[in-house]
């Protein structure tokens, strides 16, 4: 393990939800909303919702899919919208393009469903992110582990998942620091492979502790 040139700097994050003026009462309106809503709305209903509902480790992926299932009773489209793994997206624009393509394709094949009224409307909401640098920083892996224990789920999610969009890389803040500053490529890879779809945030964190402990014991 090499001596880092830079510490890991923890951030505290908190989100506000802004109510936009867009809503959908049928599939056609969802499609139009997906095309026109802001990037922060795509973020709210995908990246952020995965953190907000992290305790749901089965069948829940994003709020578009959930509404299509519960509001429109269209399980096939719900499954298709739930399929994209947000970890593979580096921009919200790419994610929007894919969600829109899936919806367009479904509308083309099932035109009779496009105008069918939903049980309840879907509201396009937006995330406003407020970050403040934490007073904590870590210079060693041991210190990092200790600080991690004091990080909230929301801030863990920010470093672990949201960081992909910020970095523009298929990795996360933790893995970048492990590899670039500590030279721990293997730990970086193991960390990046932790599945946030099938783990709660607490579960993902526990896995990370295990990998770090193994590294510290080596």
């Amino acid at each position, binding site marked *: 393990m090499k001596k880092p040139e830079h510490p890991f700097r923890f951030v505290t994050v*908190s989100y506000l939800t*802004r109510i936009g003026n867009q809503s959908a009462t049928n599939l056609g309106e969802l499609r139009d909303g997906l095309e026109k809503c802001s990037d922060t709305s795509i973020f709210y209903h995908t990246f952020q919702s995965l953190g907000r509902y992290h305790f749901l480790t089965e069948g829940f992926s994003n709020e578009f899919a*959930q509404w299509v299932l519960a509001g429109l009773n269209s399980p096939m489209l719900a499954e298709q919208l739930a399929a994209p793994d947000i970890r593979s997206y580096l921009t919200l624009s790419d994610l929007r393009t894919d969600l829109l393509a899936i919806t367009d394709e479904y509308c083309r094949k099932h035109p009779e469903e496009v105008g069918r009224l939903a*049980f309840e409307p879907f509201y396009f909401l937006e995330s*406003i992110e*407020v970050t403040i640098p934490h007073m904590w920083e870590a210079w060693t892996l041991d210190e990092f582990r200790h600080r991690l224990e004091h*990080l909230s789920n929301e801030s863990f999610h920010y470093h672990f998942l949201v960081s992909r969009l910020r970095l523009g890389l298929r990795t996360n803040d933790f893995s970048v620091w492990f590899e670039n500053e500590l030279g721990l490529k293997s730990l970086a890879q193991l960390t990046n492979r932790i599945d946030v779809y099938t783990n709660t945030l607490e579960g993902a964190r526990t896995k990370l502790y295990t990998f770090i402990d193994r590294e510290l014991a080596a």
Partner: protein
Amino acid sequence: MTITKSDAHSISLDAYIPLLGAPEIEELRALAAQISGRTVQMVNSTAMGGGVAEILNRLIPLMQELGLRPRWDVITGGEDFFEVTKAFHNALHGGPYQARKENFELFLATNESNRQRLQFDCEFTVIHDPQPVALVEARSRQEGHWLWRCHIDLSKPHPDVWGFLRPFVYRYDGALFSSPEFARQLPIPQYLSYPCIDPLSEKNVDLDPATVREIVERFGIDLARPIITQISRFDRLKDPIGVVRAYQIVRRYMDCQLVIAGGSASDDPEGEIVLEEVRREAKDDPDIHLLNLPPWSATEINALQRASTIIVQKSLREGFGLTVTEALWKKKPVVASAVGGIPAQVIHKHTGLLVHSVEGTAYQIRFLLSNPALAHKLGEQGHDHVRENFLITTNVKRYLTIFLHSLQRSC
């Protein structure tokens, strides 16, 4: 009237650590440290009774503990003022309204007298609900940050009342609504702020099984058989008759009891009528328990919820539905109508089951009674959902975040 710290209930933030974990509380402190010493003024129309006062009673001491300097002011007014605002309240919920010039004048005059009586010198001013909305006139130029926290459903307001109030709302820096469904199209930013429950309040604090048993048996309910419960006023919009009909369908297939427990109907003539209608529908079934409880029954409600096998909220129309929040917090499987704020809490098949009819309610109750493992899982996930989104600590965090965001916007 200004309410000081000694008036408000003080429960330390540390008391929430066993429920939420230390990191969540530590981060509240980290966020608050950024605005330590800043002044906050909360203004509403009542010091006691009602959900807003209940929340402020908890919020103010928690903000104080976090290093802010909050103040809670309550507007005063005559009975005639509160009659006007009650009529406004009903009209804003879509009810009929006969516009009278003198009512609008009385509203403005009372707001003006409160504006002169109260001090408005805080960095953050949060005005709750329509009654004091015109206090924004006290705002000189663009000083301070003014927010309007609307706790009611504004989706279908009476045009005369909304047309009168709207210019005041436009003068705020932002508005907070309990559900996107309740919001209006406004030229100011609108934020989502879910209502919340306090897990340490009398209605939600953990009870030992002996207390639950003692209370429930006092009502003649058999703890050995499944208990289906709806907690609500005897109000047609809560559809208690629909609940009885759903129960009657379930009873064709399986043994269970029904409890409908609500607030006192003695001061509500319509409540008495609805209660009588429900009694008729119940047809002297000894397994249907209609409990007309007095307002000081928080522990009884808590025990009834904890003793229940399934909680139902079959409302035809609903605000946010805090009884659902309370049930989810107690890890109960919930079957509820997809109305108002309920879908935000009951994520279908994940934190409960959403229904749209009497038949659907009956089917989902049968389904959960037949699948206790799934019912247990829904209850557990519902509890997690409330812990993350609908507790008083989340409310504190949301205020801290909006204050920080307001400061960043003004920089």
